[in-house]
């Protein structure tokens, strides 16, 4: 009987404890494997949809791109001003990284454009900007009549474009 008790303490209990630990570890790994498998299956499903809709997604990505894309913005400003018959005489495009503490999931790209042209030219310029695929919010517009020729206005248009953090 004494031998049985000694064997119980020295062999059965350690084995039992190890088996219990292994059971818990297996359950944990099993759950992890199941959740990971589900996630990966979902990702694969989403990726199939993503591949089917690449053209739409590319357009969507242009609204708020993941990068600053300063060159594209400058090119768009120039195109819009030329199309609307106004002269772009200066511009500044400055990226502003928002802190991670900020709740917004985007960084700002501040735009400042110095332009000259007619009033209809300005309104058309603004309309085109408002319809631009890359989202730009005009924050301020300042206009003054040109010296001597009041039909030519000088404008300073400021705005913000956005890109992902």
């Amino acid at each position: 009987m004494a031998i049985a008790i000694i064997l119980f303490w020295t062999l059965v209990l350690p084995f039992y404890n190890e088996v219990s630990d292994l059971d818990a570890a297996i359950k944990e790994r099993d759950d992890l494997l199941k959740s990971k498998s589900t996630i990966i299956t979902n990702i694969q499903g989403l990726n199939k949809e993503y591949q089917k809709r690449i053209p739409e997604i590319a357009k969507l990505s242009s609204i708020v791109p993941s990068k600053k894309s300063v060159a594209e913005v400058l090119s768009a400003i120039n195109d819009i001003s030329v199309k609307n018959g106004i002269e772009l005489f200066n511009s500044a495009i400055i990226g502003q990284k928002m802190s991670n503490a900020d709740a917004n999931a985007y960084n700002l790209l501040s735009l400042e454009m110095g332009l000259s042209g007619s009033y209809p030219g300005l309104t058309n310029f603004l309309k085109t900007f408002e319809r631009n695929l890359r989202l730009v919010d005009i924050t301020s517009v300042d206009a003054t009549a040109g010296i001597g020729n009041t039909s030519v206005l000088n404008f300073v248009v400021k705005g913000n474009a956005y890109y992902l953090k």
Partner: protein
Amino acid sequence: MPDQNGLQLLPETRRKIEINIPGENRLIYAGTTVLVLILVLVIGLYFYRDALRTKRDVLDSSIVNLEKGRDKKVEANLLTLSKQLSLISTLLDSHVIWSRALGKVENLLQPQVQFLSFSAAVSDNRFEFKALANNYTVVARQIAAFVSDDSIKDITLTNVHILTSGKLEFSIKLDFDKNKFLKE
């Protein structure tokens, strides 16, 4: 043993007396049974533990294989798209349309008023302008026109004076309701 008066008290040969008491070996049997059971249990647990270890290792390797099979680029693309989708609706809701606001000001403008300059900003919801008018009546009508529009919350006549040409130069500051002035 000598024979005493023909009475023999002790047997001449000794016989082993065996007395069986019921249950005398019970403890031994019970101990042996428990010992055997414990040994069986130990062996059972040993094999069960090995089986569990194998199962754990298989699960570990499955998890590692699953990790290896992940396409990080695809995940990054999907994550970016998710961020963009959630952002776009928020940004479109707050998107301002200045061309509409300028159109509104144009519609409210009196024919005899000529703009010299204007300055507008979303940050403080203001639209300021400097203009020329023929007389005070025109300026008053202009103010009344702005008052009639519900997107304009407040009007301040910051300056008005007569020029040598006889015309009036005046400055007005409009405080507008962003949602009505820049969105509707």
